[in-house]
């Protein structure tokens, strides 16, 4: 790991950033409200490509990732992220619905740390984040 990445990680301890990737503005806003209330700085992206560009500018501490999005879906983004930054990159929590349970395994395989079911509320989201040491 390069020293510059370390520096960034140290900084992000002070103000951890979460990248919320979802094509729905409503979902992004819900997540933003919850995470900001718990001391996160939130950046938003509306699709995988947008998210990837964000990461290339500044790597977030974690990513809350939707699955089914236009332009670039969550899986492609996740694969690209891991390919570029290796397994120690940002922690990825991906969002799914009961219809997409089959994709859970695939996501974990591709390097997601956790999954969360939509719709989520404050308790569910913070609970999940606490579980994997993000809060």
């Amino acid at each position, binding site marked *: 790991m390069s020293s510059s990445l370390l520096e960034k990680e140290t900084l992000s301890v002070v103000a951890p950033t979460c990248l919320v990737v979802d*094509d*729905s*503005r*409503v*979902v992004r*806003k*819900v997540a933003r409200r919850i995470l900001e209330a718990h001391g996160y700085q939130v950046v938003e992206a509306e699709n995988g490509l947008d998210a990837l560009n964000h990461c290339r500018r500044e790597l977030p501490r974690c990513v809350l990732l939707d699955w*089914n*999005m*236009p332009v670039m879906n969550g899986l492609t983004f996740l694969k690209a992220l891991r390919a570029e930054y290796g397994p120690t990159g940002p922690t990825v929590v991906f969002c799914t*619905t009961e*219809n997409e349970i089959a994709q859970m395994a695939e996501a974990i395989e591709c390097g997601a740390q956790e999954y969360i079911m*939509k*719709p989520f509320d404050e308790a569910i989201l913070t609970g999940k984040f606490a579980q994997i040491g993000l809060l």
Partner: protein
Amino acid sequence: MDELLIDFLTETAESLAALDDALLQLERVPDDPEMLAVVFRMVHTIKGTCGFLSLPRLERVAHVAEDLLGDVRDGKLPANAALITVVLGALDRIKLIVSGIVATGLEPDGDDTDLLAELRDMRTRGPAPEPEPAITLDFDTLEMLPPGTIESLAAQIAEAVPMAEATPEAAHGQPAQTIRLDVNVLENLMILVSELVLTRNQLMQIARTETDSRFTAPLQRLSHLTSDLQEGVVKTRMSPILGAWNKLPRIVRDLASELGKQIDLVMLGKETELDRQVLELIRDPLIHMVRNSADHGLESPAVRLASGKPAHGTITLSSFHEGGQIVIEVADDGAGLSTERIRARALAQGLASSAELATMTERQVQRFIFAPGFSTASAVTSVSGRGVGMDVVKTNIERLGGTVDLRSVAGRGTTFTVKIPLTLAIISALIVEAGGQRFALPQICVAELVRAEGSGSLEEGALVVERVDGTPVLRLRDQLLPLVNLRDLLQMDAQAAMNSADPTALTVVVATLGGTTLGLVVDQVFDTEEIVVKPVSPMLRHIKVFSGNTILGDGAVIMILDPNGLSRAVGHAGLTATVKDRPVDTQAAATERTGDRSAMLLVRLAPDASPVAMPLGLVARIESIAREDIEFTSDQPVTQYRGQLMPLMALDSSLAMADHVPVLVFADRGRSVGLMVEEIVDVVEDQLFIELVSSRPGLLGTAVIAGRVTEIIDAGHWLKQGWEDWFSDNPGPRNAKQLHLLVVEDSAFFRQLLIPTLSAAGYHVTAVDSAMKALALRDAAVPAEFDAIISDVEMPGMDGLQFARLLKEGGPWMDIPLIALSGRFNPIDIRRGGAAGFCEYLGKFDREALLAALRRHLDQHERQAA
């Protein structure tokens, strides 16, 4: 509404519009995996988001639709027409629920069991297999075919096929770089730019008088920059016309299956841009026109084949810019308008006499379809032919300052052409002067400017004013142009009218007003200016000849003339009785009144008192009277007003009486009473929900006006008292017998408003709250006797129309004059009212018109009786 919910609604509305389109594309190319993924994702997103906002009903519908689409995406089910229809049904339900949420903020109640069962059923059993597309012809049709049809059909098909291939597919263009902006931000920008344009104009005006100024060059630059900025900001308000068209493919598809027709919709010039505000307003008229073309314009496949046309009818929508306007055409390749049917219909509806019809051109006859309530559809379908349609389209387009026209060729089809200004905010206008005042005439209706000589001129080649049937006309390039003096039209002053009787040299603006061309005589013509349209204040809004006002370069505030209002005024004045376009004119009263919105005058009766309201319609004038002009005769304050002593009243004794006292003048038949108030606060125009208070005389009730609870005072009550005090004689009509009126009105508010008004005018009034109660009075052992009956039209139970019909059937009240009061004021309602037996149809709140109508009919009735 919660911010999240608003976001959701915006987002969902966008997806839904795109979904309709995507599904229809999918139907054409059923296996397009890209389209399938798009459709699936959009439904999926709607469902996923619902959960965050707890919208269980919406979520359930979206969920089941998503399941079905998931199977299609996975190749388990084919995306054929039957399946698409079911999914479209689900989308319609989603739209319904969403519009419910938009209206109330809550999910509307409703039962989706049927729909859900249908969706699940489709999923388990799969859609019925698609029937093989085939053209079936029965022998009768074949026999009807003229010889050579088959050959020509074959040739047409050969011709059509390569063309179809050559049609460029709508490319899924890269989404342009966009940002989301609050509309209000743009609106504010527009207002600021408007102000900037005005200031620029003022500066330029000043600079024009200075010949050698060092400001000239920078001012020139400022002027150019302002123009560029204006153009740029106007552009931000522009959207592609597609926004008004995107619902049409779906509508046409539904119509085609409902009507059993085959219809192709071709859209050309989708990217043509126009002002968003105009776009919103043009959407419904366009839908109406396309429905009309599908229903009336296009023939059924069998008839089409029989006349040698392809079974598929085509509706072509096209749009382009032309001279500051956007032109939208709706063309069908149907049978064309049947002028014979239109003639017969116009005759039957009394729109024209057979003599008039005989002299009309085909085109004039065709324009009858824009007449209110006109319909030639021999069969009334659920789609159109219900007697509303093209007249509404025409009214709406004219309201935008646009025009609509049509071209029809028998056997080849009909084309409607709509022209509307690109934007409503800044227009180009010709500044003219009449009667010492300047007016702005929108450039769009100015055809040319000519100078005409009076009848005395002998000059060779000069344009001379002639007279036809007493109407001055101008012979311009072999066309007779009726002349109307703008001064007369605006009733500006008598002297001016005298001058125009024998004009010596006239400046004539050849103007196209609402479908007729005429010469508008003005005193002087100035420049053409880009003017910023400001809305007319509510107090002047009923004057239909003005569409707004503007500020000129020299700072003067002038009125903008409304071409359509002028055209109606011309019609009313009867100035061009021989030339006027009748079908246009029958609409005269159509848009005169706004309906159930009412204008309220807010006044303060005493210093520091809360404002109270009264209907503006009751107030004849508002004056400011100097304190020294107020005299006292036996404690009663009076003032000299228009050559008479007018009693003045105050409702609150603590009135401060400053140097000038605002006075509301209430007038009736030459008598006036003034109500002194502390301050005129405002005029508000709103839909009012009035809570009644009956306990306090003189108070009608309370309503929330401009955000605060306001008392509505019963001016009539107080004035009646004032009148009785002052005019000690009974202020009744001139005959000794007091006339007795029956008022049938379900709204207590209007009853309380009408009774004092009518009593103050000297009538004896009985009021009931339903038609049934009125009939009970008639059918009593000794029937009540009335001289006139005033009835509301919209009432629960028996409405005014039924009531009128019953009265006219016979019985003791059969011959009593019957006056309708209605909040709805369109030609169809008026005609219905007339047919039901009303002799007058008046808008609510129009006190003057009601009293005038009563006088007219009671006098007439009396004469007949005598």
